[in-house]
């Protein structure tokens, strides 16, 4: 082409470096100046005797053609290097992308990744290296050996930059992985010298490095999740074990009733109660180990064990010795771990009604009598504060229906959504109205009132309540003792009526069918209160039952709007009418229903009688 244009010599340079030559250009250098033409980085020089215009055109054309060739070639090369060339590599790339690293162990991830990386990068050996050690490798043994050795000499942990590795047989590349969870690591790859790593390989390395790093991170996260789940499970089991040291049933002694509950704020807690019965005497202790959760619960189990030992070692008249023993046993342990435990220890003799208590920093503790409430204040600091007992036992005489109520501060410190505490005053006020009621009923009502006060605010501390009632409520005259339930004014809550009624009446109604009648009758009464007295809004209904041979009387109190008999007449039985059956049903189910407005309370009285 050049010759036909009259070119005698030509030279092609790229970036100042000669890349091609036509004829004897060197000899011409000294003679006439060449015609030069530039295209990109390409310089084309031509010498000749032909027409200068022709020569110039020839140079331009030559340069353009060469430039085009170079551009095409380099683009193609880049394409080849960057894109995945073969089906195998496509499969590998897909496998890398699909690797479910989130469900594997790190080791398995590494094991699966290395062959894929090798395939994708056309490396004969691949290794994962840590700062000081090779983690795992894959490929030709000789190349692997070289790779690990060459990779170990590089400082990549501080600057995180890639390195080229050069050797006599292999050429290599070290690529640090930017992982966040897994230990620092780098990928090192080896190729034969014939296939050196090019800049164009780096795009692929960037992708692979990121994928491998995140796959390894995912594996580590997965392992951490498994480990945490195991710890959580063990924590749960341990908590249940700790909580299981609390007695599962209240003690049974003639002439008294005991009800008790301990609700830890978490799955375990420091609150506790325990008891033992020996020779007609109830030995009991209620306390609170400082702190919450499992640590407090573990200490609590130790305190209960010490109580059990103290109960077993002493008679009913030796309360002070019992507490002395507790102090001596527990002080070294508690002082050592820097914890203390409030505790009220007592003995109760139902036959005489005599109670002895020794209160070491515990509250609330109240004696509920017909004419008022006494507090049982602490007489010494909690266990763990002093090495010996410093307070004296106190004797309390309980009368029929009197209550000894021992709670924990989790009850009085229950907050409502406005941050107001349930409080000691409220507890005393509520208990004052519950004198004489069965222990179980007192216990349920207090817990319910605290729960209602909280209105969904979770308890911040463990809640414990032990109620000891002197005298068996089932033997009491009906005018002195009633069993109560507090219902929230909604339809769903009314389902508590049936189980409550069954517990109160048991089999003392003469006819087993009477229980169903009473449930339906009270249910209709309460439905009426929910719908018409509270009009679907919030409120409470307190129902009290008095049972005697041949009769049961119920009283329902609510503070909704006053009852007004509906303007619509009572329905005629058997004539289809949609409303108004509630009161008609009640009247048919029980012997009498009466209504009275007392102050701002609606008071309904329902009586059912039968032949005893």
């Amino acid at each position, binding site marked *: 082409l050049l010759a036909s244009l009259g070119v005698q010599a030509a030279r092609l340079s790229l970036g100042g470096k000669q890349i091609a030559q036509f004829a004897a250009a060197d000899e011409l250098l000294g003679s006439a100046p060449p015609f030069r033409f530039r295209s990109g980085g390409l310089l084309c020089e031509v010498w000749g005797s032909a027409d200068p215009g022709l020569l110039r055109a020839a140079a331009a054309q030559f340069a353009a053609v060469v430039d085009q060739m170079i551009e095409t070639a380099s683009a193609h090369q880049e394409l080849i290097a960057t894109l995945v060339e073969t089906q195998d590599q496509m499969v590998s790339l897909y496998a890398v992308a699909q690797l479910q690293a989130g469900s594997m162990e790190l080791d398995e991830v590494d094991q699966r990744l290395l062959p894929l990386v090798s395939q994708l990068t056309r490396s004969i050996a691949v290794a994962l290296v840590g700062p000081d050690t090779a983690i795992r490798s894959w490929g030709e043994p000789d190349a692997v050996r070289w790779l690990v050795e060459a990779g170990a000499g590089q400082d990549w942990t501080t600057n995180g930059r890639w390195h080229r590795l050069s050797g006599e047989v292999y050429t290599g590349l070290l690529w640090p992985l930017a992982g966040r969870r897994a230990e620092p690591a780098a990928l090192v790859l080896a190729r034969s010298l014939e296939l050196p790593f090019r800049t164009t390989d780096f795009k692929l390395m960037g992708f692979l490095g990121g994928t491998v790093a995140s796959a390894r991170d995912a594996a580590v996260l997965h392992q951490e999740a498994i480990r945490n789940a195991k710890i959580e499970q063990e924590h749960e089991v341990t908590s249940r074990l700790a909580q299981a040291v609390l007695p599962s049933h209240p003690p049974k002694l003639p002439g008294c009733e005991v009800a008790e509950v301990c609700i830890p704020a978490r799955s375990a807690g420091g609150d506790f109660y325990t008891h033992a019965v020996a020779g007609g005497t109830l030995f009991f202790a209620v306390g609170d180990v400082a702190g919450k959760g499992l640590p407090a619960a573990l200490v609590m189990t130790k305190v209960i064990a010490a109580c059990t030992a103290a109960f077993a070692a002493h008679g009913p008249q030796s309360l002070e010795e019992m507490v002395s023993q507790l102090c001596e046993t527990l002080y070294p342990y508690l002082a050592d771990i820097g914890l203390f435990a409030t505790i009220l220890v007592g003995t109760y003799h139902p036959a005489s009604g005599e109670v002895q208590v020794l209160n070491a920093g515990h509250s609330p503790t109240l004696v509920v009598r017909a004419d008022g409430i006494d507090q049982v204040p602490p007489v010494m600091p909690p266990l763990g504060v002093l090495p010996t007992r410093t307070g004296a036992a106190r004797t309390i005489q309980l009368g029929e229906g009197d209550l000894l109520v021992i709670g924990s501060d989790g009850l009085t410190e229950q907050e409502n959504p406005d941050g107001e505490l349930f409080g000691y005053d409220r507890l005393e006020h509520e208990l004052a109205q519950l004198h004489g009621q069965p222990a179980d009923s007192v216990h349920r009502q207090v817990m319910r009132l605290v729960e209602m006060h909280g209105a969904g605010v979770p308890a911040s501390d463990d809640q414990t309540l032990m109620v000891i009632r002197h005298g068996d409520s089932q033997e009491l005259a009906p005018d002195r003792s009633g069993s109560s339930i507090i219902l929230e004014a909604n339809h769903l809550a009314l389902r508590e009526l049936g189980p409550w009624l069954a517990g109160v009446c048991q089999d003392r109604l003469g006819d087993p069918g009477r229980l169903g009648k009473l449930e*339906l009758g009270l249910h*209709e009464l309460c439905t009426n209160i929910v719908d018409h007295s509270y009009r679907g809004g919030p409120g409470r209904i307190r129902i009290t039952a008095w049972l005697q041979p041949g009769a049961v009387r119920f009283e329902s109190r609510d503070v909704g709007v006053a009852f007004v008999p509906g303007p619509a007449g009572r329905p005629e039985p058997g004539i*289809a009418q949609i409303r108004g*059956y509630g009161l008609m*049903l009640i009247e048919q189910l029980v012997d009498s229903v009466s209504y009275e407005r007392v102050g701002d309370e609606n008071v309904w009285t329902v009586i059912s009688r039968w032949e005893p």
Partner: protein
Amino acid sequence: MTDPRPAEGMSPTSQVVEGMPAVVRIGERLDAAEVPAIRAKLDELIGSGARHLNVDLSDTVFIDSAGLASLVRAMITLRRRGGDLELVRPRAQEAWRVFKLTQFDTVFTIHDSLPAGTGTA
């Protein structure tokens, strides 16, 4: 302390059994708390053109006046359209008592078991 109330959403409710005429099966309780769900179900069936409905109370042990009213209401609507709402008698005496006391046992068409030709479970 355990809460004897069933958790929200766990309460027994109606179940429609495919077939003609449709059968609505009531759970253990047909009380005021259940009424909204049962009323919605009956309204839906009536709204979709049903003229005959069967309500199966076989397993129901507690019915209150609100529950009864939801049945009466649907029965009146269907009878006005020339159809009816028929009942399968509750096995539990406690639940049957409400029908006797209100004398609705004489108002509803009541079967001892599901009539033939209705949907099977």
